């Protein structure tokens, strides 16, 4: 679970990367259910809220959700694990993003870097909505 030291570090990084204070909030730090809510604006100007579960962070890849159920190009709910769409099983009616592979994960990865990967996911998602190409087509499996 995220401890005080790591929390301070992560907050420091977000500050250093010039995130406006209204755009993120850490909730439940020091409780068994800590998480981060952080806003993301796509290039097209659409705003999404990311929910990053910090229960097992940083030892394990944190679960990341968009706080609503997204629809794919065909109008289907993005609520199940899909390799081509980079999604996992949904929770609370939220779409869960696959942002990191287990092989690439280390506890050194910052929440900021996860945010960057999620921003890329969002761009790929919007491109998918526009063209019908899978997210796979846009996302490189690089880490």
């Amino acid at each position, binding site marked *: 679970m995220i401890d005080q030291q790591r929390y301070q570090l992560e907050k420091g990084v977000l500050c250093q990367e010039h995130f406006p204070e209204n755009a993120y909030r850490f909730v439940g730090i020091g409780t068994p259910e800590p998480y981060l809510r952080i806003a993301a604006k796509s290039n097209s100007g659409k705003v999404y809220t990311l929910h990053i579960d910090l229960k097992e962070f940083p030892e394990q890849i944190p679960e990341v959700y968009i706080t609503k159920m997204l629809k794919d190009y065909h109008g289907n709910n993005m609520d199940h694990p899909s390799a081509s769409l980079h999604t996992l099983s949904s929770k609370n009616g939220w779409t869960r993003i696959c942002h990191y592979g287990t092989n690439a994960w280390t506890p050194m990865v910052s929440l*900021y870097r996860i945010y960057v990967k999620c921003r890329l996911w969002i761009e790929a998602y919007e491109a998918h909505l526009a063209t019908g190409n899978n997210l796979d087509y846009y996302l490189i499996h690089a880490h």
Partner: protein
Amino acid sequence: MADIIYINHQDVINFAASTVEELDAYAYEWEGEGVVHIHLHPLKHSFGDLSKVSFSRASSVSTYEGDSRFVVLVATKENIASATLFERTSDGYSEKDYVYIPSQEDLYSRNEGLLELDILSKKKVIIVGLGSFGSQIAIELAKAGVGVFSLFDFDRVELHNLSRHTCNANELGRLKTDAIEDAILGKNPYATVKKYPVNINEHLYLLEKELKNADLMICATDNNASRYNISKALVRHKKIGIFGRAITRAEGGDVFRYRPGGPCYGCLIGADFLPPEEITNVESARGDGRIPAYVSAEDANAIVQVGLSSDIQPICNLMVKISLLELSRGLNSGINSLEDDLVYDCYIWANRREKNYKEWHPFFQAGKNRTVIRWYGVNVPRNEGCAICSHNVELDVSGVGGFKPQVDDLGDVTLEL
């Protein structure tokens, strides 16, 4: 109440094929564990039958009035206890020969000289993960005389474990902590075993509590999350940890030792590739060659251990050796000379020339070339910014493929809470 019940499938098939209407069968249960095995025929294991025995201080069996099958008459002469054994027959009790199950002192004296067994008997080892690695290591340490164990594993013995596990088919369904406790006590009846059938990632406080007075921790789990959690605990409590794993299909594997102040498992995995300088140093004795690619981030988590038991045994064996070396370090033991040999942080082993080891030279006439079935030692640089072992953590805040998103336009958004 039985919670988990196994029925011998072959018995069901045989009964169905027979013409018999009804047969008495046998149900075996480990007392208090709630695991029952049902068989049509009695199992030929050693503790299938319970007979009544009396220990008595009577001077003669003729004064004994009970009906036990066995009577053990115990006498003390000049502070030495002795026993005489009788078994009931149709003509009354008759004296029988017997052999002692060794006392604690006798049991340890058998290995004396090579290891400081009376000291090892007070050493406490935590083993996290009792799969194909942890089960073997537990038993080997018990054989060597280690006396105090704390076992962590929430799993039960299942069919898919059996081929590489120390447990046998009669133990299907048992908690591994229970089964391995029995195995340890079978080798060292005077050992103390504490059992924690829990997931350590969710019960780290239990691990930390046990670690406070432990001498060594064995990490034999199959995922990096637990390795990182264990590393953190080792760093915090300044304890030695031995990590081991096999890579896919057990074509090879590695052993890592954490020592307080040295590189941790996070440093090892964060290093992505082991630095070429170190390898060249190691290889100066063995010849040329590049470090196997399996320490790359991509393969670091490849822990599907579906190889042969014989492929993981060399890895377990080195983990045991390093453990015994650490436990008897500084003591006058017969394995002290290994202190000059096993000086590396990480040890690499290959079983077969497959995948990562495809290019390696055949063992036959290898000369200085890198080959299978040999250990290679590597020193891992400590990462001064490591998220696990450093006070000055330097997180990975890099962008992805040169991309860093604009965030200053988020000033006007309303965060959903």
